[in-house]
């Protein structure tokens, strides 16, 4: 910091404060630092301060305080956790509750690497990549009334239940690669795959892959929607539909000393503004999905802290390649050239997002740095003319009525396309109709939509671009891409995979079956007395097990 005069030093400390308290993100801090004429070295210092730990862009709230045991944390959820069966639920709100009750063999870390959980360590994998051998952690007990140690038989039973057609589980397709699950002894589980699968551990880290005790399932007639019994840090206490769900501390938890909280009380608050009001008025201590429109206001409250930043959500324009003239890559490229992403993301994120042309953001190991394509109206018009549309064309932009963070950008896209002669109508459909039109009947031209919550890049590539995937709504079919997706999953060497995914991303940028738009940040807001919480880029609240309430 030599060479700074007093005024510069003042700016520096001011910005540093803002960076550390999370009032400004890394980009903002660095941009302001540069604008104030600070030296490159000090700007860089500021950037680093704003993004502790670098690769993972999660921000840690009050890690410094010493953990204190006790207290009930009141959490505001964005939905009603109405389906508690971890093997069948598709509700994010329910998963954000069940992840504290049930556990799986492995878990994703905040930096999206995979670590062991109920498995004592990461599994040993055979040479051919087909056999995974897990050794289970000792001293893991199921909650009452089961109250007995968890064994490999429970793992075998749970994996059987997840794919049982009778329960219509949510992991059926995810678990297709598994040929068999066996328990040679009480603490060993051997899984055999039908082909090598680099994303397999990431799949197992999913919250659906939860270990449940057989006798409890049977006592409840196979229905785990209103009863719960797992191995997690919290024990299910009571669910009052659409009102509250309470869990209490598991005194027998295997990770001795945790959790710190005596319990958690979850309240469903689906109205965004009301979630903000609830934390501001001290009705709850913590809210998930802090509304992006209210981030400024929440940052202004001295009694609150905010955790989180970039998320694993991806917002993009989906294009139906089955339809003329979108099947022509020149038309798709013209659309991409017409866009100004900074304008598109503003009404969706209120300054809390990042424009990106590639699928995986900076910091992710599968990120591919590319040069930004500037908005080029003239070029786009020329390209459209070359494709046979000198007088422009008409399109429909499909989007979701339920999500303003997708519908609002649709209107910006509409006006930007207008500039190159594409007249479009924005049609907003509510969820069930949207899903049918987009995924089932593929009845759309272009659509502003999103996907989220991935851990491994394979999930995103295979889901959306594999010619045989049912979720490949674009109807994209490129044998080379299919091959690269398969290759990327057949090796576990991350460097080799990153290379494959770089190639893959470059082909996608050429072919443009979808046009990537932006990534929205995701935040949790909490009272400043809440300590030990870490934001997960998957949106998970997994860290509540190490969260505590510190005395003022």
């Amino acid at each position, binding site marked *: 910091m030599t060479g700074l005069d007093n005024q510069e030093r003042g700016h520096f400390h001011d910005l540093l404060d803002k960076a550390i308290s999370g009032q400004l993100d890394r980009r903002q801090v660095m941009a302001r630092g540069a604008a104030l004429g600070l030296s490159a070295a000090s700007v860089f210092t500021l950037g680093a301060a704003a993004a502790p730990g670098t690769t993972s862009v999660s921000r840690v709230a009050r890690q410094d305080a010493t953990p204190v045991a006790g207290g009930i944390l009141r959490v505001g959820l964005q939905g009603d956790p109405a389906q508690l069966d971890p093997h069948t639920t598709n509700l994010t709100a329910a998963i954000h509750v069940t992840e504290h009750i049930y556990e799986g063999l492995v878990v994703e870390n905040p930096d999206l690497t995979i670590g062991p959980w109920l498995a004592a360590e990461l599994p040993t994998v055979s040479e051919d990549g087909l056999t995974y051998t897990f050794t289970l952690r000792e001293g893991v007990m199921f909650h009452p009334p089961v109250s007995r140690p968890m064994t490999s038989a429970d793992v075998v039973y749970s994996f059987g239940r997840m794919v049982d057609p009778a329960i219509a589980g949510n992991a059926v397709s995810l678990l297709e690669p598994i040929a068999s699950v066996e328990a040679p002894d009480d603490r060993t589980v051997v899984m055999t795959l039908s082909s090598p699968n680099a994303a397999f551990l990431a799949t197992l880290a999913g919250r659906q892959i939860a270990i449940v005790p057989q006798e409890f399932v049977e006592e409840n007639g196979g229905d785990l929607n209103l009863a719960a019994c797992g191995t997690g840090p919290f024990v299910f206490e009571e669910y009052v539909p659409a009102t509250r769900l309470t869990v209490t501390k598991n005194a027998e938890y295997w990770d001795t000393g945790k959790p710190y909280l005596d319990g958690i009380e979850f309240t469903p608050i689906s109205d965004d503004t009301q979630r903000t009001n609830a934390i501001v008025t001290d009705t709850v201590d913590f809210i998930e999905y802090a509304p992006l429109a209210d981030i400024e206001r929440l940052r202004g409250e001295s009694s609150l802290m905010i955790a989180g930043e970039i998320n694993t959500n991806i917002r993009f324009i989906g294009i139906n390649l089955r339809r003329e003239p979108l099947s022509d890559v020149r038309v798709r490229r013209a659309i991409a050239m017409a866009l100004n992403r900074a304008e598109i993301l503003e009404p969706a994120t209120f300054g809390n997002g990042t424009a990106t042309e590639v699928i995986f953001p900076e910091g992710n190991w599968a990120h591919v740095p590319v040069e930004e394509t500037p908005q080029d109206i003239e070029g786009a018009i020329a390209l459209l003319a070359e494709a046979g549309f000198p007088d422009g064309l008409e399109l429909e932009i499909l989007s979701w009525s339920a999500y303003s963070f997708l519908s609002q950008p649709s209107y910006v896209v509409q006006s930007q396309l207008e500039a190159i002669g594409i007249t479009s109508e924005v049609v907003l459909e509510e969820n069930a109709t949207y899903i049918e039109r987009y995924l089932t009947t593929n009845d759309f031209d272009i659509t502003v939509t999103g996907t989220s919550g991935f851990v491994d890049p394979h999930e995103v590539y295979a889901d959306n671009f594999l010619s045989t995937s049912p*979720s490949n709504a674009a109807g994209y079919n490129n044998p080379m891409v299919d091959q690269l997706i398969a290759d990327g999953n057949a090796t576990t060497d991350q460097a080799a995979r990153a290379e494959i995914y770089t190639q893959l991303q470059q082909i996608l940028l050429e072919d443009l079956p979808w046009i990537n738009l932006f990534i929205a940040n995701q935040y949790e807001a909490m009272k400043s007395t809440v300590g030990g919480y870490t934001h997960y880029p998957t949106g998970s609240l997994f860290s509540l097990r190490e969260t505590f309430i510190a005395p003022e």
Partner: protein
Amino acid sequence: MLRYIAGRIVLMIPILIGVSIVAFGLIRFVPGDPVTAIIGPGTRFNEEQLANLRERYGLNDSVVVQYFKWMGLVLQGDLGTSLRTRLPLTEELGARLPVTLELTIWATIIGTIPAVALGILAALKRNSWFDVSATIGTLIGTSVPNFLLAVFLVLLFAVELRWLPPLGYERWRDGVWAHCQTMILPALCLGLPLAATVMRFTRSSVLETIGQDYVRTARAKGMSQRSVIMRHVLPNASIPIITVVGIQVAGLLGGTVIIEQIFSMPGVGRYVYESISNRDYPVVQSVTLVIAAIFVLVSLVVDILYAIVDPRLRTG
């Protein structure tokens, strides 16, 4: 009187059958498949798995068979099972209906008793400052939609003054005061617009009655103002008021959809709202039927009130 009521109840049956057919048919006309809506876009199912699910939910039967299966259940007092939560509806409604009904009752109390009193006062003191401010108040009350009112009331009473919680619900058994606290704001949001309408109608109805010949006669006989109002004006002015209250109270059930959503109340309105977006057929059709039954019952009560107030209707 009993025959009158019995006749009314018999008339309810064809109405409810009609409602059941419309509710059942309408949700099926809306595009969107319940099975894909329920499993969500994040989960991939192959055709066979989807077919299994449809079979389980009884969606492979013809629409007519589905209807009669449902009606068969309803007649046995079983409303079916939610496709999404897989919970029995009778239980679910048993927990949610009381919340919505209580909210409606509070809103009705807020919306009628003070409103009728103030309406009479405004009519009696016609053109006074009280009347003018009451008229302005009712104008605002009838034109502000209840979701906007909710925003204002929350900002004032929850965020600024911190007197009441901004949202949430506490059951009676979790504490009477806690329960009432969570009820006040939603009930006000529903009740105040009702109060405005009722007050306006009361005022004009009373004004109209005061101008009648029999009121002048009563006054000419030397009756006190109080007796004239209580014996001649109010009974005659009350019929249009009852009509308006009846229609408006039934309409409150519609208002609960938005209010329960905003205040996170575990009522029927929010439930049916969420179920429509999920194409949860059994919930939508059964809840519609139950709400229709309540609606019909409210109009029955209104009709009985007419008969009490106006003897001519009992025989007519």
